[in-house]
């Protein structure tokens, strides 16, 4: 059986700029696949080629062994980074319009319930909040009961509460066995939602695998955090990094590190231990902060 989505040597050039520069990967059915990277890494260009919106300059994309075609259009659900909706029509009318465009659809009631659209169903689409709008756009992407759902930075610009609500929605879609392709520049989002990820920078893939495997491969240590005020300035035997109000100590052996801290008579009241994150991974791979 051919892979669900197979990408080979994909590239897209804009007037000499290599937005995407020869990338290859495979997406398996029922997984949540994440494309990560900073703004301008080529995530959106890549995902738009996968969606069939943007023509590749080079390379191939096969959906269940065949080039993207009519069947793919009927079976794909797409949520763009920015989408304008028709003015002067309500949420319900918008959903009805999109429903009529597809041969196979899911009942409107199911869609309304699963995306929690009830409370603003008869509101003009111009009067929605950021979170409500994203939920509607997700509902539109789900209207044709798609096999694969593309989400391009779906939570950018949302407040933390709305972001968590949105993650729950995505997880419920995942539970129904759908394949999800997600781009994001929030590493936490990728860690929560994605089964497989690729990290992109300058149009190329710099790392790929499951988040856990990537972290295990690149890091054997954990991070100990202490408030800067509790930390003496002259403790040179500990490798400490300053990060805002905190200092972070990287450690392969937590017992030994804590022992050292006690010997130095440092208060452990504010001690926290966190695992390495994808954020750290990106920094380690590129030498740059992700949001810079």
């Amino acid at each position, binding site marked *: 059986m051919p892979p669900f989505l197979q990408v080979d040597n994909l590239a897209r050039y804009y007037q000499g700029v290599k937005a995407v520069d020869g990338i290859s990967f495979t997406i398996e059915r029922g997984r949540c696949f994440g494309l990560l990277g900073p703004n301008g890494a080529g995530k959106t260009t890549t995902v738009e080629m996968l969606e069939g919106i943007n023509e590749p300059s080079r390379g191939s994309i096969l959906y269940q062994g065949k080039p993207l075609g009519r069947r793919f*259009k009927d079976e794909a659900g797409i949520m763009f980074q920015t989408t304008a*909706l028709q003015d*002067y029509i309500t949420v319900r*009318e918008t959903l009805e319009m*999109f429903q009529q465009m597809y041969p196979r659809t899911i009942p409107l009631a199911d869609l309304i319930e699963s995306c929690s659209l009830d409370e603003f169903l008869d509101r003009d689409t111009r009067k929605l909040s950021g979170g409500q709008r994203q939920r509607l756009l997700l509902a539109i992407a789900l209207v044709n009961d798609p096999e694969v759902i593309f989400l391009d930075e779906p939570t950018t610009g949302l407040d933390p509460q709305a972001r968590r609500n949105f993650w729950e929605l995505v997880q419920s879609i995942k539970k129904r066995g759908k394949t999800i392709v997600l781009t994001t520049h929030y590493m936490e989002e990728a860690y929560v939602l994605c089964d497989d990820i690729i990290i992109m920078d300058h149009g190329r893939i710099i790392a790929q695998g499951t988040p856990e495997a990537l972290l295990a491969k690149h890091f054997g240590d954990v991070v100990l955090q202490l408030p800067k005020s509790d930390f003496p300035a002259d403790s040179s035997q500990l490798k400490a990094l300053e990060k805002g109000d905190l200092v972070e100590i990287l450690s392969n052996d937590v017992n030994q590190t804590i022992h050292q801290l006690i010997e130095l008579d440092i208060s452990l009241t504010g001690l926290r231990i966190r695992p390495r994150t994808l954020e750290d991974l990106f920094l380690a791979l590129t030498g740059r902060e992700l949001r810079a």
Partner: protein
Amino acid sequence: MSFRRFLAILRARNKEFWRDRAALSWNFIFPIMIIGGFAIAFSGDGPDLYKVGITDAENSQKLHFEETQYIQFIPVTDLPTAITKVERHQLDMLVSPSTQQFWINETSPAGYMLERLLKGSDDGFKRQAVTGQGIRYVDWLISGILAMNLMFSALFGVGFVIVRYRKNGMLKRLKATPVTAFEFIAAQVISRMWLLLSVSILVFILTDLALDFRMYGSYLDLLIVFILGAICLISLGLLIAARLASEELAGGLLNAISWPMMFLSGVWFSLEGVNPWLVKLAQLLPLTHVIDGARAIMIDGAGLVDILPNLMVLVVMTAIFLIIGAYTFRWE
């Protein structure tokens, strides 16, 4: 082509039209204001220049009468048409030197004056009297105003809106669905045409109640001219909007097309007697053919056969605009 998808877009677009009250009411108020304004402005006497038609002017000896100042002498070829013009006060007098006859309208003061002048300068002319109501400027203007409104509404309501949809990403969203370009465009054309015709018919009826336009032809024929005109102008709007993504550029381009068209197509004044080069140029503009056709029906009582050349031009132009427009159309 899926009729279901076409209808889905058509319905949504229609809802947007009818719910956007500000734009919708402007569509009605604008033409009524113009027609009302001109009806008041031109309700008095017409210009002081007399117009006299001369038949067979080249082959007959010049009359003394023709040396009179402040009279515009217009050579005419077709006698029945010229007589009709006298009936409708478009000509104040018609003189045929070869048959020694002249025609005037009994109800026209200008005719009375000209009869005295003719008798004073040339002898032996036989008087032929006709009657009929004059054509006022508003009777002549209504076709032009309705057609002009059609043009602005078609070009900006379709062209500008599609460019906006492209710029804000709505077209891209539709591209990601099974909707085809043809279904999308057809829905835009039909929904806008529906609006344009409703507006034109309502404006015509309302202003007709107040001004009682002269109508010598068939209302159905007039409707057909406006339907063909609407489709042609909407197609022109689509062609301009086929791939532009800048609203500013689209706006500039639409203005650059619509304003010359408004002046050259004879909305406000007849192009008779202006530079022949401009008259030829006007023939290239779709609006000219809409207005010529509509006026011929209303004022001259022409049938569809009489204005067939105008109708053919509109059909051919529509085909050209649509083919190039569909061929160059871009979602993004």
